């Protein structure tokens, strides 16, 4: 059998189970919360921007009628990351004689950009139409939906109703191919969705305006500005939370460590009397603290990653995978907390008088 610094620390930690556990718990909580927040923080931008994207386009390009290859031009200028959806409009008359706006669209593209649109079923077959729920009121027979444009009568089958809560509810949507064959008109509006935040949208705006002179390129202001405000606020909130939690945990770790030294001052005094140097006492105490902090980081990282995953699953409906990159950061944070908390007890250690042993304290 050998008696080493390691075995002394191990015995001390095991013997004082409840004290070790409370220190470990404090460390674990701090590491767990830091991990969860940092993990979420790292994917927050992506998550929020993605969330905002579901609100639709952030740029709209409007062109005069009969602009050739409008959709292709915009797509090229917007870049490969951007989503685009061209819209062609015409006013037709229903079987009840009511004028209604008919739009020719690329259904998959619209679905991708306007993910909040709620359709009973998206048309796939030729001559199928998506009928806005208000527009449906102007139609007598939806199964053989007859529309007239410039004297040209065309029959469509309604695939289902569309609900957006906006102007779209009063329109009828058909495929680009059906629209072109019927009205011979080409798209005049392209919705563009740029991934990323306000800076990316600004850059895309500049690009589109430069490459498409004569076209009207406008951002969907409300959305872009609201978005960056919310992202900034969320950042500040998370920073504040991390700071506050670090502080709280720091105080509780401080209390635990102080008590841990105080209740063992007799032991430490004895070791000093037996010839233990200041350095050995410190090593004993600090190593124990580092051990607890590291164990706390290991368990805290696992728990924090799980928490981040659960939070993101319930709030963003996407999984946030554990990030090993936050581990060193969390370790650093925890060691910093432990070091600050250990400072006071370490001072108490250095002023410890072995003479107190003889006084029977």
């Amino acid at each position, binding site marked *: *059998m050998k*008696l080493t610094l390691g075995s*002394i620390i191990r015995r001390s930690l095991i*013997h004082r189970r409840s004290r070790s556990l409370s220190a470990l718990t404090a460390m674990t909580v701090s590491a767990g919360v830091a991990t969860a927040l940092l993990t979420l923080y790292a994917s927050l931008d992506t998550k929020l921007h993605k969330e905002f994207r579901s609100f639709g386009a952030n740029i709209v390009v409007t062109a005069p009628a009969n602009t050739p290859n409008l959709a292709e031009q915009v797509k090229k200028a917007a870049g490969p990351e951007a989503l685009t959806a061209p819209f062609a409009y015409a006013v037709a008359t229903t079987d009840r004689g009511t004028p209604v706006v008919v739009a020719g669209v690329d259904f998959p593209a619209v679905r991708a950009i306007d993910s909040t649109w709620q359709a009973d079923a998206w048309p796939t077959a030729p001559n199928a139409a998506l009928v806005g729920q208000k527009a449906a009121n102007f139609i007598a027979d939806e199964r053989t939906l007859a529309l007239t444009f410039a004297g040209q009568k065309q029959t469509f089958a309604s695939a289902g109703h569309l609900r957006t809560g906006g102007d779209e509810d009063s329109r009828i949507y058909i495929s680009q191919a059906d629209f072109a064959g019927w009205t011979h008109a080409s798209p005049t509006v392209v919705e563009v969705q740029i991934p990323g935040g306000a800076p990316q949208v600004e850059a895309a705006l500049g690009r589109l305006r430069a490459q498409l002179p004569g076209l009207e390129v406008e951002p969907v202001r409300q959305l872009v500005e609201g978005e960056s405000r919310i992202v900034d606020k969320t950042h500040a909130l998370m920073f504040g939370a991390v700071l506050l939690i670090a502080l709280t945990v720091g105080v509780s770790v401080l209390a635990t460590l102080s008590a841990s030294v105080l209740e063992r001052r007799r032991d430490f005094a004895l070791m000093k*009397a*037996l010839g*233990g140097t200041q350095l050995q006492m410190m090593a004993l105490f600090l190593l124990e603290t580092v051990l607890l902090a590291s164990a706390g980081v290991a368990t805290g990282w696992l728990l924090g990653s799980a928490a981040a995953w659960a939070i993101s699953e319930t709030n963003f409906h996407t999984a946030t995978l554990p990030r090993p990159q936050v581990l060193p950061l969390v370790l650093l944070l925890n060691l910093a907390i432990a070091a600050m908390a250990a400072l006071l007890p370490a001072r108490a250690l250095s002023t410890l008088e072995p*003479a107190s*042993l*003889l006084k029977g304290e």
Partner: protein
Amino acid sequence: MAEVVTTSLNENQTRAECAVIALEHVSREYTGRGASVRALDDATFSIVAGEWVAITGPSGSGKSTLVNMLGCLDRPTAGTLKIDGADLAAMSPTELDRFRADKIGFIFQQFHLIPYLSALENVMLAQYFHSMTDEKEARASLERVGMGHRAQHLPSELSGGEQQRVCIARALINNPPILLADEPTGNLDQANQKIVANLLKDLHQTGHTIVMVTHDPEMAALAQRKIALSHGKVFCHPIGGPVVSLRR
């Protein structure tokens, strides 16, 4: 035998030469809080190798103050204190720590065993902080105090007397020239006091120098010499001479 040696050295001058502990006009004054207390006042005496000395005196007379200095835990504010020939005043705190581990074996009234280490490990702890651990030696030391069969037990599993024996085994492990015992039987019953007294007798017989603080006249009677303290003043009794009772 120690007595044979010491009785031939009845002059202070000759004693000083073979003294393991020598005090010359040593005082210890505590200052602070607007008052100053002279806990030890101009003490001059020496203790030679192999001697067994009892320090007695009423509460507050300065016993702990004296023992703290003999144990290198504290230093005089005046006078010179030499232990094993070395002047404590010349040492840095680190040197003093080292010196203490080398020269002094402590036997405490409250035993002061580390609660989470076994009897054997408690003895080895003294080896660890002194130089290096040697389990065989540590076991031998426990055997010597009759605790060999309890080596793996924690202090909480031992009686007070048994804990004190482990404490003595620990004090002996590094072969210090001086054993310093502060009320070694203060927390023990009659039966255990006897065991510890016999142990100390045995240690004295084998040549250990023992300095012991005690309130107990029975324990004090075992020592060869008494150093009585009263209000910080030292009264040394001649070796083997009659015991003078102090006015309280």
